């Protein structure tokens, strides 16, 4: 594989990872926290429902997990495609 192809494959893998992460990002905040909250209203938690928890805490915890997951996965992608920093 030429350097150009290698860079292309790396970028494709990166964009795929970004898309997966952003889907999760949107589901927990805009989904569970706002639009889908009525669907989750049957699940009780601490005097309210699961959607309220996602809006005030759950989404933040998932965001945290997402950034570290992405950083971890990208580091291995960097090495796998040989574009990591020496």
């Amino acid at each position, binding site marked *: 594989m030429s350097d150009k192809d290698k860079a292309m494959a790396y970028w494709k893998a990166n964009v795929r990872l970004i898309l997966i992460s952003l889907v999760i990002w949107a589901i927990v905040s805009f989904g569970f926290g706002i639009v889908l909250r009525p669907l989750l209203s049957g699940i009780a938690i601490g005097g*309210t429902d699961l959607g309220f928890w996602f809006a005030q805490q759950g989404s933040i915890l998932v965001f945290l997990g997402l950034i570290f997951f992405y950083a971890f996965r990208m580091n291995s992608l960097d090495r796998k495609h040989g574009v990591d920093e020496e």
Partner: protein
Amino acid sequence: MDQFTLNLVFVGATFALYIGIAIWARAGSTSEFYAAGRGVHPVTNGMATAADWMSAASFISMAGLIAFGGYTASSFLMGWTGGYVLLALLLAPYLRKFGKFTVPEFIGDRFYSQTARLVAVACLIIASVTYVIGQMTGVGVAFSRFLEVSNTTGLLIGAAVVFAYAVLGGMKGITYTQVAQYVVLITAYTIPAIFISLQLTGVALPPIGLFSEYTATGEPLLARLNDVVQDLGFSAYTLQDTSFLPMLNMFLFTMSLMIGTAGLPHVIIRFFTVPRVADARWSAGWALVFIALLYLTAPAVGAMARLNLVDTIYPNGATEQPIAYDERPDWIKNWEITGLLKFEDKNGDGLIQWYNEGNATFGETAAERGWQGSELTVNNDILVLANPEIAGLPGWVIALVAAGGLAAALSTAAGLLLAISSAVSHDLIKGAINPKISERGELLAARIAMAVAIAVATWLGLNPPGFAAQTVALAFGIAAASLFPVLMMGIFSTRINNHGAVAGMLAGLIFTVVYIFLHKGWFFIPGTNSFPDTIAGSLFGIQSTAIGAVGAILNFAVAYGVSKVTADTPQEIKDLVESVRVPRGAGSAAADH
């Protein structure tokens, strides 16, 4: 020691610490002044970013907004944290790889256009200056409440301290003071929250306490809160309006805050200070860890403060008589002096009736009880500052909260001032007016620009335009609609060209600013608006605070359309984009400077 002396000791000690750091971390080169020599550890940078980001609004106002807004205020929680996911995935690593000093510099180089760079400078300055006004007024308020000096004196002391470490140390001095400020502000925020959580629920961790049982009655805290606020005619704390427009507005408002956060230059430039691209990714994660410590505590503080407040006014339950004004606790007296809490005995019975007078159904109940309007007005901003007093905590906690509020305001002000001064010295002076300026000359220019920016911000803090509170919407709207989309397209598309970027930025900017002015008044002059700023009355059924997301979509669409019908980007720009996308070589790019 009396309370005043305690406040003085705590605020004085933290200020001495900041000055000490300023002397230790002087900047000797432009690289140190703009990017702290790119030698900041990712965890250190994460902590500095957290302080840079969490402003007087996060520290002082947000819990109050949540306390009175309930579920609806979740937009602030999701919006101001979700932006870091966008920053970590879409911007920070690539802009770090690009390896320059300012956000307009990337836009100018990537879109090979001096016009694009200057439009970006204008957006940056408008967004950052409007943002800094709020910080400076916050400094004034904290000083006048806790140190009994006049607003003006307080503001001048604050400005002098920022001057010391920002002018001397630039980004290097700011970074290490922000780390110290983070420690001060997070300690100040969490200690009262832990005490209050223990008092109300017996659980030490506030985020868990929020979903635990209220020990006084044995029912869940949020269920109890829902009951008592509804007894007073307010809507339930956890209630969601599930009709279409309110939901759409909450969606767009959250989105505007997220992309606005990711597009704010003073946050982006913090990621220029780490040594490697991988560090920029980790650093965004650490920043969110440190931010989340406050943002997970804030909803608990909001709910518990609201419940505490109702219990204080209605000690026998919300369906019984409230307390008499003569028997009010000391903290109410303290805050009455500031005017942020007001009592007016409308029915002359000497009791403090506090309820939702806007609720017509509840109005009948109130009339039966002989109430003639709600008699207490509570400003959102006092909840966090008054929390230790409401909960009856010792004096040193109150002093700590004073130091914490000042740390939050000063750290954000310094970050904004650096973004403004580097745009002036690096983008305007070196980039446009005098490209041949020497390194020493540029460093001097950067210091002078910083000093001028501090003077302007102080002046604006002393004479805040009447619209100061409104302008935050403007700052986020501009960052979301103009800066974030071009930065993202500059990295993720090779096809967007100079014309597309300029047209997109201008379209997003003009659309958003005009929409805000149509609802809030032209240049925020009261009475010049064409539409009321409510969901029902607004032009598209979208409140002006939520319009940034729509402006961003317009920016993307216009940039794409214009690029499609104009000449393709030159090969060397395509190569630049390719190189920004891979981490390898970030170290050598930094060495060019």
